[in-house]
């Protein structure tokens, strides 16, 4: 199963090679053009020359750690890559470097901690990675300074049509775009799998600059906080509530036109949907919409509980409904159902 394969693969920001490899294998036969750029973004195009040029984007990278030093004991020091809650790090299995050397994020055991230490989360400066070696020499034989450290989780089925795994942000987006790209739409479609989103939307701007589409759609995995201890007003999205349409986040305000496009298509096709009820954090939509003279950009996400942790949950009905919505939206665009005139418009 492609989604399982994508989520189990390792691809911390700046180290997306394995994800690129899977996607190339999966999609090359469906594409007229396949290429990468200097940053590592991966492009698949088909329908070249058709009238509306649409770019679809999902980011390949996930949050993780990077090795910054060795202790004489053979333990590794690491820094975070992207935003991870310190509290989810302790005691998690990881893999380090190209050879996927297994390790665990370690900390003092509970009976050795002072009462005051037990009360607060241990931050990354007081955590280390244990490869099970007994000296710096042995550690240096296995891994290098600067090697990436990825959380390691097997993806499992759970409950009512759910998956538990890591990196649904944004491998679920990668999966959806891969499925979409296997079909044909009456459009000039470029699917872009972007790099380095988690450390500041770094890949997508360059990708949008080179593709220069008439319109872009970004597909994300986003927080669902419909859990104990969160007031309903702060849920952001609800697991199982359908694709989440973003109205505004820290990087982007959705144009009314793309909101209407998603909502009207969902209603026409009877697809459940929700709005993302939070305005925090940024996405590739922010960068893409600000490229060239401005690119009309829409953003839709799959709700995901416990995002940026080694064990998050997505609902497969949400995934399928997002796929249906995206197909519907591409068909509407192909039929000319949205004005995507890249140039200028009369004031209405």
């Amino acid at each position, binding site marked *: 199963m492609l989604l399982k394969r994508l989520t189990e693969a390792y691809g911390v920001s700046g180290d997306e090679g394995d994800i690129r490899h899977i996607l190339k294998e999966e999609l090359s036969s469906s594409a007229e053009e396949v290429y990468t750029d200097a940053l590592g973004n991966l492009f698949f195009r088909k329908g070249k020359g058709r009238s509306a040029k649409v770019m679809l984007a999902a980011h390949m990278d996930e949050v993780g750690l990077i090795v910054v030093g060795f202790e004489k004991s053979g333990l590794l020091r690491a820094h975070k890559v992207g935003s991870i809650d310190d509290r989810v790090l302790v005691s998690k299995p990881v893999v380090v470097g190209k050879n996927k050397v297994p390790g665990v994020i370690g900390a003092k055991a509970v009976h050795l901690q002072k009462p005051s230490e037990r009360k607060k989360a241990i931050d990354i400066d007081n955590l280390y990675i244990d490869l099970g070696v007994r000296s710096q020499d042995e550690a240096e034989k296995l891994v290098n300074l600067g090697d990436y450290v990825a959380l390691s989780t097997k993806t499992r089925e759970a409950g009512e049509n759910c998956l538990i795994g890591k990196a649904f942000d944004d491998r679920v987006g990668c999966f959806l775009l891969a499925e979409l790209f296997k079909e044909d739409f009456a459009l000039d479609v470029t699917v872009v799998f972007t790099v380095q989103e988690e450390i500041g939307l770094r890949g997508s701007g360059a990708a949008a600059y080179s593709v220069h589409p008439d319109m872009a759609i970004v597909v994300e995995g986003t927080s669902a906080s419909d859990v104990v201890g969160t007031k*309903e*007003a*702060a*849920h952001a999205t609800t697991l199982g509530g359908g694709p989440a349409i973003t*109205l*505004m986040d820290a*990087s982007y*305000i*959705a*144009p*009314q036109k793309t*909101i209407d496009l998603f909502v009207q298509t969902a209603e026409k096709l009877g697809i459940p949907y929700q*709005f993302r*009820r*939070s*305005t*925090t954090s940024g996405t590739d939509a922010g960068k893409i*919409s*600000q*490229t*060239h*003279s*401005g*690119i*009309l950009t829409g953003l839709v996400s799959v709700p995901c509980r416990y995002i940026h942790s080694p064990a998050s949950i997505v609902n497969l009905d949400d995934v399928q409904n997002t796929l249906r919505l995206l197909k519907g939206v591409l068909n509407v665009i192909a039929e000319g159902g949205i004005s995507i005139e*890249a*140039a*200028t*418009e*009369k*004031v*209405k």
Partner: protein
Amino acid sequence: MKQLLKKLSEAYGPSGREEQVGRIIRDELESCVDEIYTDSTGNLYAVKKGTGAKIMVAAHMDEIGVIVTFIEEKGFLRFSNVGGVNPYVLLGQRMIFPNGTIGTVGMEKLEDIKKLTLEKLYIDIGAKDKEEAASKVKIGDVATYYRELGEAGNRFIGKAMDNRAGCAVLIKALQEMSKTDNEIYAVFTAQEEVGLRGSRTASYRLNPDLGLAVDVTLVGDTPEAPTMDVSLGKGPAIKVKDASVICHPKVKEMLEKLADKENIPYQLEVLVAGGTDAGAIHLSRDGVPSGVISIPCRYVHTPGEMVDQDDMLNAVRLLTAFLVQPLNMQEIFPCYLS
């Protein structure tokens, strides 16, 4: 000026939803410019064709606001900010939605007022339950302050002086300016308050020879104000720098010389925090020499922003003089063109 400013200030136009302001500006300018159009970011362009230097002059249309994120069972609206909104300023304000629905901002019970955050506030639109509320307001709808423009002496008090005062100055300048060879692109920009977003895409589109922004700036002339040598009523401010731009020294100097020549009072402005559209314009493509004419404004981002009428009129004079002057770009910015 008062009638124009009243219309603009009272219009609804938070970041990303600037269309109503755009329509007012179009009606004002249609007869005196050659072209008028919008783009996908929401900018409004008013163009005076010419054969000379290509000048982009930007005034942002958008104002701060709050976006509805949740409707409670009892009909109260929860929200997040659009731009720099202070919860202490928001408390007790009347807010308005684009369809005319109004509400008041209330607060949960708080042990300590210092703990006030936006999450503790809600908008009450007088609905008796969720159903009634949802029939008037949807998730994602944006509300702005609901205020009429008031006159206090020679000064105006109202919401969105930031930056409808700048829009009014730019409109007046376009209406009153004499003929010039310069090609003028007046851009009423969108989404300035959330990160100079409209001016970024507009300046890329236009690729101008020279950029100018017209925006409000803070002042230091009120009781116990932070140190800042700009006062209300002492004329438009010529910006030296803020957090987003160090104005091109030549553009700054040109503005100063023009003001001296035309006997226009002015002040120099160094703004420690905050930015303006020139911040995005001057970094567009291979760089654009840019400057800013600022209108001093008290109580920025509150519903009681105050500007001085003479400052605005003098800003119009300075802007007009700048736009019509013959510009030999090669002479003025030799390094820029070499």
